[in-house]
């Protein structure tokens, strides 16, 4: 189940982003993304763990670049979300390999997939909402909010790293 979802998400993610570029008449970018997608699939079959973060950065970079080039959000945001899901499921599958043959992995899969569905729906929904409702802020407010966000995320990361040590 997880493996099927992982590959489906990966293919859909690459497909959506490549389609976005292709419809915007940037075929060479679309082809590059498809080639990268094939490489990503190959890396997943070969368990190239080092390739996973590279893939995540590549998907988000191409999505961000697409958005900057005014390619439709309908392609780029779901593409990035599905790519992120594929990256997460690859790590989850790696952890499932630690299970014994007779372990009940379906329960673990259920918990994980439920959590990811909620996360994806919430973040996707919030993203769409944020794009619809646009509030005009002064530059000072933007800078302050940026600093607060960076500081807040820094705190979370610090806590997670300490906890995981």
């Amino acid at each position, binding site marked *: 189940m997880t493996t099927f979802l992982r590959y489906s998400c990966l293919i859909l993610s690459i497909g959506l982003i490549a389609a976005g570029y292709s419809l915007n008449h940037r075929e060479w970018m679309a082809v590059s993304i498809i080639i990268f997608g094939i490489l990503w699939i190959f890396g997943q079959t070969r368990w190239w763990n080092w390739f996973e973060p590279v893939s995540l950065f590549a998907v988000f970079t191409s999505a*961000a670049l697409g958005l900057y080039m005014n390619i439709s959000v309908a392609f*780029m945001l779901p593409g990035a979300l599905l790519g992120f899901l594929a990256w997460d499921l690859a790590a989850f599958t790696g952890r499932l390999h630690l299970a014994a043959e007779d*372990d009940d992995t379906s329960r*673990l899969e259920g*918990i994980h997939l439920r959590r990811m569905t909620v*996360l994806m729906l919430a973040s996707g929904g919030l993203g769409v909402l944020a794009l619809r409702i646009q509030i005009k802020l002064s530059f000072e407010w933007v800078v302050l909010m940026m600093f607060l966000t960076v500081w807040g995320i820094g705190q979370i*990361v610090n806590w997670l*790293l300490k906890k*995981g040590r």
Partner: protein
Amino acid sequence: MNRTLILALLIFLLIFAGLATIQPPILALSFPLIFYLLAGTWEAPEKLDLRAERISSAERVLTGKEVTITVKVMNQGKALEEVLLEDQIPDGLVVSHGSNRHLVALSDGETATWTYSLRGRRGYYGLKIVRATAGETLGLVKTGQDLQTEGQLFFLPPVLRLRRVAIQPRRTRIFSGTIPARQGGSGVEFFDVRDYQKGDSPRWINWRATARHPQNVYSNEFEQERSADVGLILDGRRRTNDFNNRSIIEHSVIATAALADAFLSAGNRVGLLFYGRQMIWTMPGYGKLQGERILHDLSRLEPGDSQNFNELYIPRHLFPPRSQLVLISSLLDEDYDVLAALRLRGYPLLVVCPDPVSFEAGGLPRKPTNLLALRIASLQRAALLRRLRGTGTRVVDWDTSQPFEQTASRELERRSVSPRGDKR
């Protein structure tokens, strides 16, 4: 690279890019990542409160047999989304069926139980820890705990059954046994002829001697059979046991276990001295319990070099004078003096000598230089054994490619001719 760091870096880049290009959609791309981190923080497991229990099907097993281990882990704290439970297995043990690992989700008060089987080399193994690594389902935070358990396993050496080991110590104990005591009395084997005494069975009368001397009646006397003190000495020096990453000690241990069993079955009092990195002394005793004690001690022995003694050292005070000593050793040239000194003090000595030359040759390529070296080493060894036999020591030369029971039945079942210096 840590997944949390990767996500953090990506979030910072997206926020920076979004603000720099004034593109809200790029900022929106960071939302799933931020939510992911927040979810990891929210669901991170707090302090683990797990209890582990391990049940093994047996604590003492013969080498080659399987032990079934059942592990139970109870969650007495909050629910855990993903816990990897791993029973820590010492080196020397291998999982033969199932897995010592278990990946589960444990809700509040739930117990995880799983079973697996182990096989192992001869030895003592402490099973003390079940390692639990818990995390939330996204895998961002991991918390570990070592769960203490009680458990130990003894993989005992196999015990070969020898039909009989004929020894003839000069001193026997007062209890009846199977060792000829060199004294007349009730027994099986003919010992002497003496004057008929009141109470002698008519069947004991030696009619031939009586016919020769008609004025007297003579009776047969039989040799008493009693138990004896037997001291087994197992040589655990690295120099005599380890050859090119192969160790002959397993053969020596098997021989020691077989001899101990044979001597104890014959009603003797048997003790064991292991001489390696340290000395391990199993007090002499009788019967099955002593057999278990010896096997127990044999299972723990590993070769090593003593810090105090360079040569073979046999503490004589541990063995009663003139009791039977059995040394199981591959022997070095310099051991001759120690063994000769033992003989001079009146100890009957049996040396079971696993052949180190053929053993080492088994692991070497058959090159002309190796064959020549093998021949020289064999000659040196033959000379040493011959010198030893010259002192009245009974030497059993055991080619370890042959089963020990075969060598023992050939060399040990028959009573040896009285060695030099052991005149009646």
